[in-house]
């Protein structure tokens, strides 16, 4: 594996944990080069740039995915990643306030439903370990 892939995989794992690795594993069975490009370009080239911290990257990404509207499965993964990168539930809903004004309430309502579901799951999982 290339250094770029290794670097990307480490960044992907840090952000998305086992979810992210599972996506790549599944892709690799069916379209290996696609999974490789995803890891190398997204994570090896862009996410590892030091100029923008991971928390801010997640804010920017969640905003874009929510604005586009059709990317709700990816939004879900990135909301989980956002929690992992240190965003709180309040900060996640704060993003959606902006989505409402700049991308319309339908996009915001759909995104808020995703944020709510992911936060509920995370809170339930945290309660389980107590």
């Amino acid at each position, binding site marked *: 594996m290339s250094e770029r892939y290794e670097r990307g995989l480490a960044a992907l794992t840090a952000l998305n944990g086992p979810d992210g690795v599972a996506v790549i594993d599944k892709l690799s069975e069916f379209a290996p080069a696609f999974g490789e490009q995803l890891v190398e*370009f*997204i994570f090896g080239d*862009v996410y590892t*740039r030091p*100029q*923008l911290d991971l928390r*801010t*990257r997640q*804010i*920017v*990404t969640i*905003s*874009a*995915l*929510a*604005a*586009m509207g059709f*990317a709700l499965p*990816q939004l879900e993964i990135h909301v989980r990643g956002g929690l992992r990168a240190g965003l709180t539930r*309040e*900060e996640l809903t*704060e*993003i959606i*306030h*902006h*989505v*409402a*004004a*700049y*991308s319309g309430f339908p996009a915001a309502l759909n995104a808020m439903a995703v944020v709510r579901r992911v936060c509920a799951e995370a809170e339930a999982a945290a309660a389980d370990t107590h």
Partner: protein
Amino acid sequence: MDEGERHELGMKTRRSVLGDAHVDRAEANKTAFTSDFQDLITRYAWGEIWTRQRFDHKTRRLLVLSMMVALGRWEEFVMHVRAALFEGELEPEDIKEVLLQCAIYCGVPAANTAFKEAADAVAEYEKASA
């Protein structure tokens, strides 16, 4: 807070984010047809959303830029790039990072257009700060 106070707070926020020159122009161009809309966005977007405490203006500027790229709202994108550079605390480097991130989620052509649309404002800013 009554709606008069909200409008006042919104106008103050709008001026601090977009700059006096821009807002003065928008106010001067207000017509009977557009004034209700101007009042609504001043109270709602500027008075209710940008004034919330959870994120600073820098973070809000970044997430608005990414949504404008996601939606291809180039006029609004350029306005916010200009404001972020000249009125805000963003540097061309910060804008570049957001656009690289957008290349992943919104597609390379969206980022390509965004770099082109931002170029004039970035060049002016660099000339002014040289």
